[in-house]
């Protein structure tokens, strides 16, 4: 074993060196095309985000009574996006939905997200699209990629196009690069990244806001590689997301800390608010949340302090008084000055997270470490085969 390790030492040095060189070359070379792409994008959508419709996919990935708070998280988000104007037909709610009518629920038919139980989130006007055992990884991926059975009803489909802004919210129990679905299966960060890429290829979105509240949540968006995605999570790697409070009559935790503060911020937003995503991110306080929320904006092309919260949480973006006089030959909007790309924006010190400038290099580095991991795996594999072989021959020779 030791000799092997020493053999690998020069390789390791070499690998580190190539890592560094690739990073340096990549970061200096990628700035020009990124600027160009940004310019292209802005000339295409010079009126803000360029979306005409909004969709929301809200997933509660856990079930059972003791996970009450996850149901409350998802329902809280549901109530918020609905209040801000996304119609029920454009909200896909995936919910195990076994707490409202649980035998242990003292307040039958109700779900509350705060101690004191002021606001019933379940109410009488709620549309759960995927319920109970339908909440599976497969259904979620099918929903996103659109590869659903032809017989699937409209309410269970994500009928988006290249003018749709989608808000994807997930909550449940997770770990490093995975999220458990109903204690049975798990979805990995790679699956989500691939699903988003397939959506991008088929022009199924204009922009995505991906928000996740689970343990080690920030790892879940680390693998995403498709453009126009803004991601945020509740906690760093090796860090838990904690619940916010218990209700003594319900007897379990009623909401998670991160979601509680996001929802609290959202309560101050209405359909025509001019608040920006940066304001939401600035409101994150790791001391109160008990974990370090993360933001990933390197794939997102607009500055966060120009991106309205209602671009993702709201309903309709624009209205035209009609008939508009078409101005013939007005094609000069293509020559508009491009707004500088987002990624160069300096970090605000109060935000407790790693913002884009450093994250830009991350995927490349993980690629290298991935190769390194693979080599290690090869070595381990052959070693174990060798050991098994030794054992087999030893058993067969010793009689």
């Amino acid at each position: 074993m030791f000799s092997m390790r020493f053999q690998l030492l020069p390789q390791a040095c070499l690998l580190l060196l190539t890592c560094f060189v690739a990073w340096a070359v990549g970061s200096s070379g990628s700035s020009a095309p990124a600027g160009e792409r940004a310019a292209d994008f802005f000339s295409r959508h010079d009126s803000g985000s360029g979306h005409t419709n909004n969709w929301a996919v809200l997933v509660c990935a856990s079930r059972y009574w003791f996970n009450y708070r996850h149901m409350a998280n998802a329902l809280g988000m549901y109530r918020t996006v609905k209040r801000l104007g996304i119609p029920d037909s454009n909200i896909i709610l995936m919910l195990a939905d076994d707490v409202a009518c649980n035998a242990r629920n003292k307040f039958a038919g109700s779900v509350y997200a705060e101690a004191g139980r002021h606001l019933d989130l379940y109410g009488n006007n709620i549309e759960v699209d995927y319920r109970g055992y339908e909440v599976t990884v497969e259904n979620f991926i099918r929903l996103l990629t659109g590869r659903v059975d032809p017989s699937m009803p409209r309410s269970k489909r994500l009928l988006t196009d290249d003018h749709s802004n989608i808000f994807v919210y997930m909550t449940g129990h997770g770990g490093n690069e995975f999220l458990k679905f109903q204690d049975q299966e798990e979805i990995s960060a790679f699956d989500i990244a691939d699903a988003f890429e397939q959506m991008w290829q088929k022009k199924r979105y204009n922009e995505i806001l991906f928000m996740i509240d689970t343990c080690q949540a920030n790892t879940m968006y680390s693998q995403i590689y498709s453009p126009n995605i803004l991601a945020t999570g509740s906690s760093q790697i090796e860090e838990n997301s904690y619940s916010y409070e218990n209700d003594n009559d319900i007897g379990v935790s009623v909401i998670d800390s991160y979601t509680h503060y996001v929802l609290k911020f959202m309560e101050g937003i209405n359909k025509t608010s001019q608040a920006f995503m940066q304001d939401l991110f600035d409101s994150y306080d790791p001391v109160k949340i008990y974990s370090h929320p993360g933001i990933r904006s390197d794939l997102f092309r607009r500055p966060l302090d120009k991106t309205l919260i209602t671009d993702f949480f709201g309903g309709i973006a624009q209205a035209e008084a009609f008939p508009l006089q078409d101005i013939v030959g007005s094609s000069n909007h293509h020559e508009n000055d491009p707004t500088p790309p987002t990624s160069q924006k300096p970090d605000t010190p109060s935000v407790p997270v790693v913002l884009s400038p450093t994250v830009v290099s991350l995927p490349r580095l993980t690629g290298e470490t991935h190769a390194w991991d693979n080599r290690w795996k090869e070595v381990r594999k052959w070693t174990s085969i060798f050991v098994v072989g030794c054992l087999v021959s030893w058993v067969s020779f010793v009689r």
Partner: protein
Amino acid sequence: MNSAAFANTGSGFKDPEKLSFERDWIRRAVLASYWIVIILAFPFWWHLTSIERLALPTSQVRSQLQNNIVFPIAIHFDASISQQNPTLNSQVQTLLHDSAINEPGRWTGVDIRLQDRNDEVASSLYTVALGEQTSIAHSRNLRVNRTDAQSATRLSSILSDLIAPPESGTSHSQRVVQYSDHYRLAFTLLNEDATPNRFVATWDVQAALAEFIYPLMSQLSILHNFTVESQVQYHAPLAFEPRRVTLGDTEVSGLTQEDLTVFINSAEWTLASSVSNDPVLHFVLFVPSETHSPMNIVDSEGRPINQSSFLLPQWGSIFILNNELNSSSLHLSYNDLKPVFRNFATQLAALLGVPPVPFGLIMEGSFLSDWQLDALLRHRALQNVQGSQDTLHSIIKLVDQINNMPVGQVVRDDVLDALASLHEAYRTAVTSPALALRWSSKALSMASRAFFNPGMLALLYFPAEHKYAVYTPLFASISVPLVVALIREFMAWKRGSRDNGRR
């Protein structure tokens, strides 16, 4: 040996050599049968655990990306014009050519040609002739008045606006809905509050539709199929409180630009049934309640503008009805609905991407001219071709990129069908834009069907450790005794043959 000694005592023990399961050939047969089963099962295991990935026609798709649909267009100047100014023909030709070079995006897929003689019977032959006033006449004719006929610049600008209508910025591309075979048009009469004094119980929707919407639909029927539904609702509260604006002696409810974007109260209004997956275009006739009427759209300075309708891009349109209703009549007659449905018809055309009539032109006759319809056909066909090319390319790219994405026979057939339809679209573009559109639409739906095939779902990502963790507990424990037994048997056989040789 001990065993022999036991056998000789003649008690319950037998000679191991005589025991059936200790005979060499039986033991070997048992061992061999295990191995045979394993070896025979191996291909099944391999087949069942591997993913079916049929080869897609990659090179064909790549070469398709280079192709583009081209519609040849011939324009003929009538003798009445060319006699006046013999050089006009070449002047217009040059101007159009320059325009095509300056704005390649606008002229993609159009190959324009000016003809001297009217002898060639092409499908899209447009004729320009002298007339009383500049106007669009029937069956691809254009009449120009004397002053316009003199100017090559004016003529070429009219022609280019008619044949390749400019897309006026992003608002246009966002307003127009994506192409679909089917649309559902949902007409809704919404009473904000059906208090006894002021509400509309019935409307003469059939007559209004027949007059304004159906002619348009029948003209557009070569592009789309339509389903029409209508409903009346009696309680549709707004989700916001409109600001009251005082205007001279009256007070009105002002809707600002911001209010318009949140006008639709999607949480409480049910505007369309969700029975099918076709895109829905909504047309809402809104009757404000007594407290909110009259309701006006106001500009940024708070002054009411002279319009009672607005359009939400890709969604539909809303008309606010402010007519002083007779308190006795709860019915909207055909005459009341005339302005409303004229408006709806215009907005439907705008939503479907019908190009506007160029400024300064008068249209003779019905709703859409052939010039507009042809331009729309060409534009939609071009969009569909590009869409299907993109989709096919992304299928190829994703299959390449994601290793565990299955590709079945159905997907492959759909891709081949899409390629064939694309080919047909190119072929028919020369003769008939309508046929080309039909084929391009089929190509797009085939390509999309291939992309959305439920069987194309990539298997979930499993790290290598997970695979070891599944296979090792099972196979390691089975394989160790099997391999060890094989080696032992082999050595026993070798020893036996050596002993025989020695003997």
